[in-house]
């Protein structure tokens, strides 16, 4: 019962907040709505007994990635947009239609998933250790590759920020 209340409340807020990201003409408000959506996702992870991922969600998304977004918006000094959405009435209609069709397909396909067992209350501590066990056995190669990827991104980001003017200097 209380699970249902919490779940529906959370889903309602997350839907409203993500619609805020979509419709708010002010980029910084979009970013803040996204922060709140991320916190909602982290709470969903808590509900699914994935406590470690919930914490990582808070640290990585809410605490790092979205801070970068907000900083970049401040850097550009982006104001309320005059033209928020892309041009063309029919294009827009087509895009919304695509979205709705996609939603229907997704929901229909999810009902093909057989109804599974109850959510067992496993200890969070154990889950994190299992996660680490998998990370260092089955996915060890991916893990090392990710380290290299992050190194490459660090180098690339610094190099990109060095570019003055660009190739199309007037």
């Amino acid at each position, binding site marked *: 019962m*209380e*699970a249902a209340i*919490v779940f529906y409340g*959370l889903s309602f807020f997350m839907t409203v907040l993500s619609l805020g990201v979509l419709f708010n003409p002010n980029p910084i408000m979009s970013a803040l709505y996204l922060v709140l959506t991320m916190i909602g996702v982290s*709470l969903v992870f*808590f*509900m699914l007994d994935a*406590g*470690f991922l919930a914490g*990582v969600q808070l*640290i*990585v998304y809410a*605490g*790092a*990635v979205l*801070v*970068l977004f907000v*900083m*970049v918006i*401040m*850097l550009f*000094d982006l104001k309320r947009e005059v033209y928020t959405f892309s041009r063309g009435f029919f294009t827009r209609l087509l895009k919304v239609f695509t979205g709705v069709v996609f939603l229907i397909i997704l929901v229909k396909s999810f009902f093909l998933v057989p109804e599974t067992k109850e959510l067992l209350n496993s200890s969070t*501590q154990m889950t*994190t*250790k299992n*996660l*680490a*066990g998998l*990370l*260092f056995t089955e996915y*060890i190669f991916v*893990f*090392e590759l*990710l*380290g*290299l990827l*992050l*190194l490459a*991104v*660090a*180098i690339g*980001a*610094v190099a990109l*920020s060095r570019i003055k003017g660009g190739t199309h200097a007037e």
Partner: protein
Amino acid sequence: MASVIAIVFLITLIALFGIFLVWGTAKLGPKIKQSSLKKSSYECGIEVQQSGHTKVPVKFYLTAILFILFDIEIIFMYPWAISFGDAITNGYGAQVLAAMGVFILVFIIGLLWEMKSKALEWE
């Protein structure tokens, strides 16, 4: 489930407290007619030099990018640190240590590169 309820309850409580305080100061304070001079931003009493928003150095955002990347590498160390003791008792501690050693090596290379490329210099 209980933890989610507790977190939501706590956040709601704090938010209500904060809203109450902000609303209270708005209601209780004296109502003085706000002149345009009073509304202008405070720059130690001298006249406002540039209005509000100046361009911000790109440096800050570069710091934020590097922060994200290193933060993720640190996050990857957490499950390792948690499971390292178990790995040792189960007898495959050396492999896990070696795997993390390679990862930390990449981390160190990244850090050294950033230092060498002067991305971390602040004039």
